[in-house]
């Protein structure tokens, strides 16, 4: 026989002024299962809590209803209270007779008292079906995975490693460094990008706690916070990493030339290559699609010239599975495909290039050794036009969002052109100039005032070739008249977009992304580096357009979250989760796609039926992943799934109690 104790709180006069608390307590005595009922001025205060604890002992109560304020306020208080009174904390229900009753019905004591009585009756009906629940714990693997070896990934890995945890960094390309390695100078200080990046690359490569896994991709992710089982595909490098000394003889002798992705195809690399001279690891890989040996079976020059016999054509992709406690996703961004803007002639005219091409053009180790030369004929351009918002802030052809970095990098490019080519003219077509950030607006002001870049507010409607010039036609909306510029080179500030395979990775790990395929943070303000999947964090431009300082800051923030998680041996799990009644589960699998956390899997169980052993499929809930939303319980046709603490029976009991 269950014995419920009901405790009605006056909350001073907050409740008692509108609700007759003595009467509610009196009425509650007649509810089924109620063994004791009383009221008190302040139930949450120490004497009130003592009253509850004493009543549990004296009246042998095994379930408690407290009618007071919102459970969002004091449920933890009263759970602790009954726990110290010797009951399981989940054998408590609260009736909210303050926020939902006395405060909103101050002028009708009779009906407010009636409503409070009904709310208490619902709570009593529910608590009769409450089950004791226990918090369980899951162990935490003290190893972190960082996906992406750009500046965000490097920073996150360094911070986690410096805190004393082991980190693996998985990078798709043959070298870490990411986009920042391609950039020449950084705004607003005009630091050389390589000068500040490469020391970090060396630091992360030499850190005893960091393992770099380059030229590798994530193949499969299973498990949950604290225990992710990640399968990594180590692509065949065709070069033995242990034997190779990085001498570079192989790529000097290789006869196959391929446009270099790192140099934005403005320069060639070989089929056996390192992406750039400062690559880490500075050991080449063979691009099998373009290698003469893999295409024709004849060649093998690299193998012949290698002094350490490191070239190995027989290498195969290797799959390794590791267990990690936490994952930082720092996969970065791609550039918008600007060829959709046919009027700008990108792809048609060689001298219409993107900002990233321009970065390589002005880089001392780039295709022109740092001299700004037109890609078409190598002449030094005199008139350079920059067009901003190419793909950004354009709902029709591009993306609706602002790419955030273009205003600043265009100002940087304009400054560098004026600095390097003294008699040059720089024109910038813009929609708005957005320069929030420390020292950013000052930089932009210098670009116009000190370096004399001419900013024209308006869009470009057409670019066409005339002789060896590009005629840029646009509108100056401030003067309200058309303008025409005879340009030698045009640089497009293309939008930052999510990686083309961003959605695939998100689906693999199991977190959400927005309509632009940028990864969604758990809360836009209060949880900007977490995802909805516990143990998975975001850093850098994979979450949205970001410049280097923002990416680094977010990476450090993600690292702190990882360190917080890995500092514990095990973590408690909330017991209010779904559970499967295997006896009635039909194994239809309807619940699997409904779960937003990928917490439900199908498993095969063995059963003895009529003396025979049969095996059948049933659903199973992963307690580490389930967050207790209950979506699966509604999808379940046979009601085999139930949400603990909010079971079908409990809710129906409340509905019934309301209608007595």
């Amino acid at each position, binding site marked *: 026989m269950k014995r419920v104790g009901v405790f009605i709180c006056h909350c001073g006069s907050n409740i008692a002024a509108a609700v007759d608390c003595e009467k509610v307590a009196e009425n509650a005595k007649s509810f089924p299962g109620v063994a004791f009922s009383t009221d008190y001025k302040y139930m949450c205060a120490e004497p009130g809590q003592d009253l509850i604890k004493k009543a549990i002992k004296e009246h042998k109560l095994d379930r408690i209803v407290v009618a007071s304020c*919102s*459970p*969002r*306020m004091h449920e933890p208080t009263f759970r602790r209270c009954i726990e110290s009174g010797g009951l399981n904390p989940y054998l408590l229900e609260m009736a*909210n007779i*303050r*926020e*939902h*009753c006395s*405060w*909103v*019905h*101050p*002028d*009708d004591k009779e*009906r*407010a008292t*009636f*409503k409070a009585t*009904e*709310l208490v009756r*619902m709570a009593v009906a529910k608590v009769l079906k409450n089950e004791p629940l226990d918090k369980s714990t899951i162990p935490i693997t003290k190893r972190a995975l960082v996906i992406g070896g750009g500046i965000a990934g490097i920073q996150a890995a360094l911070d986690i490693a410096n805190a004393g945890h082991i980190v693996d960094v998985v990078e798709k390309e043959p070298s870490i460094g990411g986009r920042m390695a391609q950039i020449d100078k950084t705004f607003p200080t005009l630091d050389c990008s390589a000068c500040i990046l490469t020391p970090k690359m060396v630091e992360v490569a030499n850190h005893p706690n960091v393992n770099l896994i380059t030229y590798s991709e994530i193949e499969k992710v299973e498990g949950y916070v604290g225990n992710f089982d990640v399968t990594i595909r180590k692509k065949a490098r065709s070069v033995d990493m242990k034997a190779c000394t990085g001498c570079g003889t192989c790529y000097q002798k290789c006869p196959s030339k391929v446009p270099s992705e790192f140099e934005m195809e403005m320069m060639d690399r070989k089929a056996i290559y390192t992406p750039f001279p400062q690559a880490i690891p500075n050991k080449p890989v063979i691009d099998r699609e373009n290698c003469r040996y893999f295409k024709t079976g004849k060649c093998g020059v690299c193998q012949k010239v290698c002094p350490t016999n490191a070239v190995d054509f027989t290498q195969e992709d290797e799959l390794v599975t590791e267990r990690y406690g936490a994952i930082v996703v720092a996969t970065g961004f791609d550039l918008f495909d600007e060829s959709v803007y046919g009027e700008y002639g990108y792809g048609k005219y060689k001298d219409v290039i993107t900002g990233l091409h321009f970065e390589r053009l002005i880089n001392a180790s780039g295709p022109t050794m740092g001299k700004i030369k037109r890609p078409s004929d190598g002449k030094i351009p005199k008139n350079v036009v920059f067009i901003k918002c190419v793909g950004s802030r354009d709902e029709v052809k591009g993306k609706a969002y602002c790419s955030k970095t273009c205003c600043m990098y265009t100002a940087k490019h304009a400054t560098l052109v004026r600095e390097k080519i003294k008699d040059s003219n720089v024109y910038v077509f813009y929609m708005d100039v957005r320069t929030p950030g420390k020292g950013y607006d000052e930089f932009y002001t210098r670009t116009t005032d000190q370096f004399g870049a001419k900013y024209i507010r308006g869009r470009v409607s057409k670019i066409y070739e005339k002789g060896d010039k590009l005629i840029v036609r646009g509108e100056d909306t401030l003067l309200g008249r058309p303008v025409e510029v005879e340009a030698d080179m045009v640089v497009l500030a293309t939008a930052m977009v999510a990686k083309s395979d961003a959605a695939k990775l998100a689906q693999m790990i199991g977190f*959400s992304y927005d309509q632009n395929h940028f990864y969604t943070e758990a809360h836009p303000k209060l949880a900007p580096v977490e995802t*909805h999947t516990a143990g998975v964090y975001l850093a850098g431009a994979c979450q949205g357009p970001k410049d280097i300082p923002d990416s680094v800051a977010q990476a450090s923030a993600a690292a702190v979250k990882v360190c917080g998680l890995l500092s514990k041996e095990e973590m408690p799990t909330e017991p*209010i989760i779904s559970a499967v009644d295997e006896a009635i589960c039909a194994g239809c699998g309807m619940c699997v796609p*409904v779960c*937003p956390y990928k917490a439900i899997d199908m498993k095969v169980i063995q059963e003895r039926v009529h003396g025979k052993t049969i095996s059948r499929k049933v659903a199973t809930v992963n307690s580490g992943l389930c*967050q*207790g*939303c*209950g*979506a699966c*319980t*509604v*999808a379940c046709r046979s009601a085999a799934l139930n*949400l603990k603490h*909010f079971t*079908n029976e409990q*809710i*129906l009991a*409340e*509905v*019934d109690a*309301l*209608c007595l």
Partner: protein
Amino acid sequence: MSVKEIPQNWEPKILVFACNWCTYAGADLAGLSRLQYPPNIRILRVPCSGRVNPQFVIRAFQRGVDGVLVAGCHPGDCHYVTGNYFTRRRYLLMQRLLQYVGIDPERFQARWISGSEGPKFQQVVNQITEEIRAMGPNRKLRDAQ
């Protein structure tokens, strides 16, 4: 008593399924702000509006509730990412089912009320209470009494 006759002192009884993260908090805020509304509603806390099984709604009508409101986070703001999208679809289907069995589908409503929308909670409760009052007592589906 004739079926059409409305008993004296009849007051509509409305069940509100409120999601813990948005609407329950919105109702708390209405209380904190002392926004008054008629005492006809009974709030039942669920973790997510997507937890509300249509079976619960049918049971409520069977037991004599005059109206049911399911309220959760705004679309896109669900604490559990996608729960309220299921609610939205079920709500539309449920209204058609109710119409089919002869219950005024307007007796069942779904609304999106966030944790910061105390005034909206008050306005929704006022509006629904008046609408249900105008419809009179729910006599369909009721268990024999």
